Each structure stands twice: as structure tokens, then as C-alpha cells.
């Protein structure tokens, strides 16, 4: 059963890689010759293949748990699988409600990296756990940690895109400022006032209707690849709000991770908090994201700073998993490596 699980997860890795390529093709098509196609075939293929990968991934994870006779997130290999599936699942489920295929290339890239590292460096045979891990808290503490990590990952993808989008918007604004007082030729697109607003509207239409069937065609098309591409993605403020919602949910999840971890530590190690390296890093991550939430609730910051903070938190999160588990001696050294 352990072998079948491994084969299935490898299959999902292949599927995600195909999805990554298709998403990239879609993105380059958006930035290329045909900015306002109504059907994004490559993106649709990518989403379908992602679902296929997700299915194999899910079955693989369940079989892994059956093979080991416990929840399938007790070592670094399995944790990678779990938070990878949460990231991909979050993306796919939200994508059913609103079109976020533009994030697919980020999310699939991330999940492909996570699974590759898991196979290449972290793989261990399915087996039971040490007595100290043999507790129902393993099911609670670690699953919530993995789910939060997955959510933070998707949010980080949105934050990264937000920063890229902001750069592009500044360029567009600079260009619009040059041509600012000139109104758009009357009659061409009646409701639009300036070139810039038109760009915005196009972006929003993509976000809402999805297929890029923008109502108004831009009278002055962006000339660069990035310009054409980014004009069809949501604006940076919209991306920021999207990232915030995910980060808020993930932050509550991370709080639960820390609290559940403390309760478990009290039962297993005889103290709720002992400044184990992993505990310290978890607190640091919590503080960085707490600062992010406070900042967002205060007047006077630009939204770019939110993105930088969220990304800093995400870097700490990844360091906590890949660096602290492997290189720092502590009570959380259960990687099985």
C-alpha cells in the first residue's frame, strides 16, 4: 500500500508539472498576441490536469496513512504532501467560485517544488510513530499546521503577484500621466473616461467574468508583454484583498497550531512552552503575521508593505519547516532523516 501511495503521489507530481506548463503557456498567451480571447484553452487544460493530480494526491495521502496505520503527516515527507495538497486544494476550490487561474502558475510551481523536494530529500518508508508522537494531538496540531501552511502559500502567491502588478500599474500610470488630460475619443467607448480607467476596467472584467471577455476594448493597447499580461489580471488592490482573506484564515489556523502545540507539549513534555527552536520560530512567524494584520488595520500604509510583510512571514514559515527541522537540534526533530 505504501508503494501504491508513492506511485500515486509521483503521478500527481507529473500532473502538476503538466499543469504548470499549461498555466505558463496560458500566461504567455495572455501576454502575447491575443489578449482578449474568450476561451483560454491552455488554462482550462491546466485546471483539469490539476484536478487529476489533486485526486491522485488525495488517494496517495490516504493510502500512505493506511500503510502507516496513523494520520499521514508525521514526518517531513508526509507534511510536505499534506500542505502541498491543501495549497492545491485551496486554489482549485476557490477557482470554482471565482476565476483565479492567473494564480495557477504560482501555486502549481510551489507544489511541484514542494513535492520534488519531498521525494528527492525527505522520503522515508511508511511506518508507525515513536511513542512520544502517539497521541490524538498529532491529528490536530500537525494537520492544522499543514493546512495553515497551505493557505499561507496560496496567499503568498497572491502577494507576489500583487507586487508585480503594482510595478506594472506604476508604469501605466506614468504613461497615462503623460497623456492624462486627453480624453478618449468620444464614441469609441462611451462609458470610459481615460486610458487608465479603461485598463482597470479590463482587469476587473477578467476577474469577474473570468474568460477575459472584457466589455470595452482598450483604445490604446499596452505595448509590452508584461503590460498586455498584467492588464488582464486583477489590480493590485484586488489581489491584496484576496491575499488578506487567506492570510486572516491562515493566521487563525496558525494560532490554533501554536495553542494546540502548547497543550500537547504540556501532556508530552511536561511544559506548555519551552523555547524549543521550532516553538520559537512558530512564535516569530505568528508575530510577523500579527504585525501584518495590525498594519493592515492602521491608516497610512501603502498596500505594497502588506505584501512585503506577508512574504516575510512566508519566508519564515518555509525556513521553520525546511531549515529548523533539519539543522536545528530540538524536540521537534522528527523528520525521520
Amino acid at each position: 500500500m505504501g508503494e501504491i501511495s508513492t506511485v500515486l503521489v509521483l503521478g500527481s507530481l507529473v500532473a502538476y508539472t503538466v499543469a504548470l506548463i499549461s498555466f505558463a503557456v496560458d500566461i504567455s498567451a495572455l501576454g502575447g498576441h491575443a489578449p482578449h480571447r474568450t476561451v483560454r484553452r491552455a488554462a482550462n487544460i491546466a485546471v483539469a490536469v490539476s484536478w487529476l493530480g489533486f485526486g491522485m494526491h488525495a488517494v496517495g495521502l490516504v493510502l500512505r496513512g493506511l500503510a502507516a496505520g496513523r494520520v499521514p503527516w508525521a514526518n517531513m515527507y508526509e507534511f510536505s504532501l499534506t500542505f502541498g495538497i491543501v495549497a492545491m486544494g485551496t486554489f482549485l476550490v476557490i477557482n470554482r467560485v471565482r476565476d483565479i487561474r492567473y494564480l495557477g502558475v504560482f501555486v502549481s510551481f510551489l507544489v511541484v517544488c514542494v513535492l520534488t523536494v519531498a521525494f528527492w530529500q525527505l522520503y522515508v518508508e511508511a511506518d508507525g510513530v515513536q511513542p512520544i508522537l502517539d497521541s490524538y494531538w498529532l491529528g490536530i496540531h500537525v494537520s492544522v499546521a499543514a493546512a495553515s501552511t497551505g493557505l499561507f502559500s496560496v496567499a503568498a502567491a497572491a502577494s507576489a503577484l500583487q507586487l508585480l502588478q503594482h510595478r506594472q500599474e506604476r508604469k501605466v500610470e506614468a504613461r497615462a500621466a503623460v497623456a492624462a488630460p486627453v480624453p478618449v475619443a468620444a464614441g469609441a467607448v462611451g462609458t470610459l473616461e481615460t486610458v487608465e480607467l479603461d485598463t482597470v476596467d479590463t482587469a476587473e472584467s477578467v476577474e469577474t467574468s473570468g474568460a477575459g471577455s472584457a466589455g470595452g476594448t482598450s483604445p490604446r493597447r499596452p505595448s509590452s508583454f508584461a503590460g498586455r499580461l498584467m492588464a488582464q489580471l486583477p489590480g493590485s488592490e484586488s489581489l491584496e484583498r484576496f491575499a488578506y482573506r487567506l492570510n486572516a484564515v491562515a493566521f487563525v489556523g496558525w494560532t490554533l497550531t501554536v495553542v494546540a502545540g502548547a497543550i500537547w507539549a504540556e501532556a508530552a513534555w511536561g511544559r506548555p512552552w519551552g523555547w524549543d527552536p521550532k516553538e520559537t520560530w512558530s512564535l516569530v512567524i505568528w508575530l510577523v503575521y500579527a504585525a501584518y494584520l495590525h498594519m493592515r488595520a492602521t491608516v497610512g500604509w501603502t498596500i505594497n508593505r502588506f505584501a512585503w510583510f506577508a512574504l516575510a512571514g512566508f519566508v519564515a514559515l518555509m525556513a521553520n519547516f525546511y531549515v529548523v527541522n533539519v539543522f536545528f537540534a530540538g524536540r521537534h526533530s522528527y523528520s525521520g532523516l
Partner: protein
Amino acid sequence: MARYAPEGLKGSAPSGAPAPSGAPRGLGLRGWLRWGWRQLTSMRVALILLLMLAVVALPGAFFPQRPQDPAAVADYLEANPGSGELLDRLGFFDVYASPWFSAVYLLLFVSLIGCIVPRTWAHAQAMRAGPSRVPRSFARFPVRDEVEVARTPREVVAAAERALGRGYKRRTGRVQRGDVETLEISAERGYGRETGNLAFHLALVGLLVVTAWGQLVQYRGQAVVVVGSSMVNSAVDYDTFDAGAWYDVDSQEPFRLRLDDFTSVFTEAGRPDAFTADVTLSRPDGSETATTISPNDPLSVGNARVYLTGNGYAPVLTVTDAAGDVAFSGPVLFLPQDTAYTSTGVVLVPDANGGDPQLGFRGQLFPTALYAADGTVLGSTFPQPDDPVLILNLWTGDLGLDDGAPRNLFVLDTTGLTQATTETADGTEVPLELVLRPGESVELPDGQGSVTFSELRRFAAFDVRWDPSVPWMGLFAGIAFLGLAASLFLPRRRVWLRVRPASGGSVVQVAALARGDDPGLQRELDRVVAAVAPDARRRSTTTTPATRAPRRTPTPRGAAAEREARDDG
């Protein structure tokens, strides 16, 4: 957080730097204190402190910490004598008790209290006062609508009140202008958002306070118990014992714990699968209870908890000296060194031969011995005692125990000792190895006596801990978690209606405003509009969907409104 104003829209306040500007001039001491307090409780300083706390917590993950691992600190100091001493003086080996770490978190909590207390008052007042007045103009709210309906204003108001339901606190008013009577509703829901926010922050303060209290009164002791023997919950009976400054001997639950048996289960690959200590608990009232302790399953005795933290083997040895007298007899703790429980231990026999010479043994225990072709033991292959072999080296001389200096009982200090050797067949001298299995006895060379390995027992290491703050920590952590979830996910919304009569019905203006990010605000407005005006003719299409509006080049007022809408504690 001087800039924080909990109540909704703050007009077109300029969105400048959040910290109060400019130090006061010529205000005297009081002025300066007031200025300093405002700075400390401003959101900007709180943010800086939050990030500083993250920064100052990190060294504890990079440098070994004395409370967690004193041996690692000693190693570090030995390896880096110069920089190590400097770091030590700066507190890098006990970061979480260092003055700079304490300063940051204490300032952060002072800032937090200074921010939260006024907000708690303001919130209590707002809850008592109920919804605020209806704004004169709805034009500055992005989420608004205006419809004409064929109902009288009173019918509209009744329908709106029904639609708003019990979730909203609301207030209905009348404004008479000339002979036109306008009806107004001001409704607000989601006070729980701010309540949760405040509860979260106050619970953090509670968490800090109970943790500090726990540190002061707690005690913790460690004891190693061999199967068949007992430990008593008393400071003198522990191998290590530490307690807080306010520790009171009376807080120590009186009990005795006897280790009856210790069982361990390993998989075929040698991975531990289960550890169980069978113990008998004796209380002063004479009651005896047989129970078990295992990892993740501590034993609660009154308020104290007993944790199983380690285990190993203790061979029972008897040493007789040259005169044939028993100089030592009892179990000796051997500490496991690897996953196959290859263990090392030391036997000190200061009483042998009347103290001259004394005997010392350094030994290795292999629970399941692996043999080379010539029969010598190479190592242990499995942690269970399937074929235990004990190998001892003998040292004679002065053990150096009489100078009163504390000694590690698991290390044999060989200064002043001579190792017994033996000659191999080809005449080279090699250290003497005494090989023993349970039940066996060997003679020491030159008639110095004998060693008997009578049986192999298990030992268990227990931590006994009493910290009365733990349940309180759980309570405050739970409140903090629920408060956090409420403050992030409960929508705080205001809905205003203004209804004036028109020919053949009424004109209804509706506006809605949310605190923080609220994707459902537009839906909520649409719901209210649909309830009051099922047959509405839309008068204007000024509605901007809140969730989708790009607002990248908004009017100045719109920009302010949106900033305010985002403003949230």
C-alpha cells in the same frame, strides 16, 4: 494607538503617518510624559515592538540555551572562549530571561494595555449608546443605493426592520422638514467583532500574568527510579529540583511512587513503539493505587503531574574486594547512547580494601550483543535484552571523591587511577576487559576480588511538575483564540435608510458601511433593498460593488472613505 477611533467613519481625516507628530516644546515634564505615553501607545510603536520581539526571540533558536541544554552551552563556551564569554555576558545563552528580551515584551504589553483600556471604555459606551446618527449624505459611501417604491414610508420602515432582524441593533427616527416627514433607520451589527478583538488582547495580558505567576510558584523535580525501588515527592529525593521564588513546601503533594515494572515494545526494525511504567502510588492516608505512566499520558497526583521522560538499563552488580568483603552491591544506571540501547555507565567502589586502593569500573552494556567471528562483542543490534552482555574495564587507585567537589556520577575521572591490563597471546598489553552476562561472576586479576552481574533491571526517569498556572493558560489561550476568530470573521456593519414620501410611494436611500474587509457588504445591502422594494424602480445606478470596485483613481472623498472602511483594530 492614539489614532485609533473605534467608531466607523472618521470623516475625511488625512491619511498621514499613524504616529502622533512632533514632540511638544516647552510643555514641561507632564507634557513630555504625556507625549511619551502617546508615542508608546501608538500603533506605529506597537508594530515596531511586535517586530522587535520577533527579532530578539530568534537568537534563542540559534544559540544553545542554558535552561534547555546547559551542556551545549558549556561546549559552546569551550569551543569559542572569546566571543562565547562576551555573548554570555550579553545574555545570549539565556535569551528569554535576558533584560533586553524582557524589556521588549514588557514594553509591548504596556503599549497594548495603554491601547486596549481606552478602547474597552469606548466600546462599552458604544454598545450602550447603540447605533449612531444617520449621516446627512450617503454620497461618500461606496456601497449605497436609491430606489423608488410604491409603499408608504411606514411600510418601508416596517419591511426594513423585518429584513434587518434581530442581528442588528437599530434605531428608527423621524425628521420633520416643513411638512415633509422623513423616516430614518440607523442599524448596526457585529459588536462582537470589537468585543472579540478586545477579548483577544486582554487574554494575552492574562496569559502573560498567569505565566509569570506560574514561574514564581512552580516546582519541578527529576528522579531516576530502578524497577523495584521508589521515589518520594520531596525536594531532597530528586536528582535535580528547581522551584520558583515563591515556592512553598506545602504546595508539594505528598506521595510515594514505586516503579513495579517497566515494559517497552520495539518494532523489528528497532523503532520504539510503546513505553509503559507500571507504578504503585502511595498517599499519606495509606491508600495504594496501581497505575501506569507512559509518554503522552502523565499521571496526575492532586495538582502535580508525573511524566515519563526516559528509560534505560540498570545491571545489578556486586563487587567484593581483596578481603572478600562486599564493597558494593546494587543496580547501576547505564545511560543509552544509541537507538539500540548500547549503554555506558560507571561503578565507583570507594569502600573497597578500606579505601586503598579504591576500585572504579567503566562499562558498556549491549542489550542484544553482536559478535565478531572470534567471539568479541562488536555492538548491540536491538534495544531489547535478548542477549545482554556487560563489558567492564577496571581502574584502581584514588577515585578522588573525598575532596568534596561535585562529580558527574556517569563519568570516571581517571586521574590518579591506573587501568588494569592484560597480555594477549603475542605479548602486547591491552586493557583488561571483564565480560559478564546476567548470573555470571568474574574474578578480578591479582586476587583483588570479584564482580557479579546478578540481573538486568530497567530504570525509568520521571519528571514531577506542579504549575498551577497551566489551566489558566489554557483558559486565556482559548479566549484569545475565540476572540481572534471573532475579530477577524464577524462582520461589523452599519446600514442606514432614509425614506421620504414621494408621489405614489416613497424614495428609499440605503447605504452600508463595514469595518475592515467585508466581501459580503454589497450582498447585505442588496438583501435589504430587495426586502423593502420588491417592485422597485431603480432611480440611480450609483452602486459600486464593494468587493470589485477597482477604485484605483477614486475621488479624494472616496479614497478617504475606503481607507476608513479598512480601518480596524
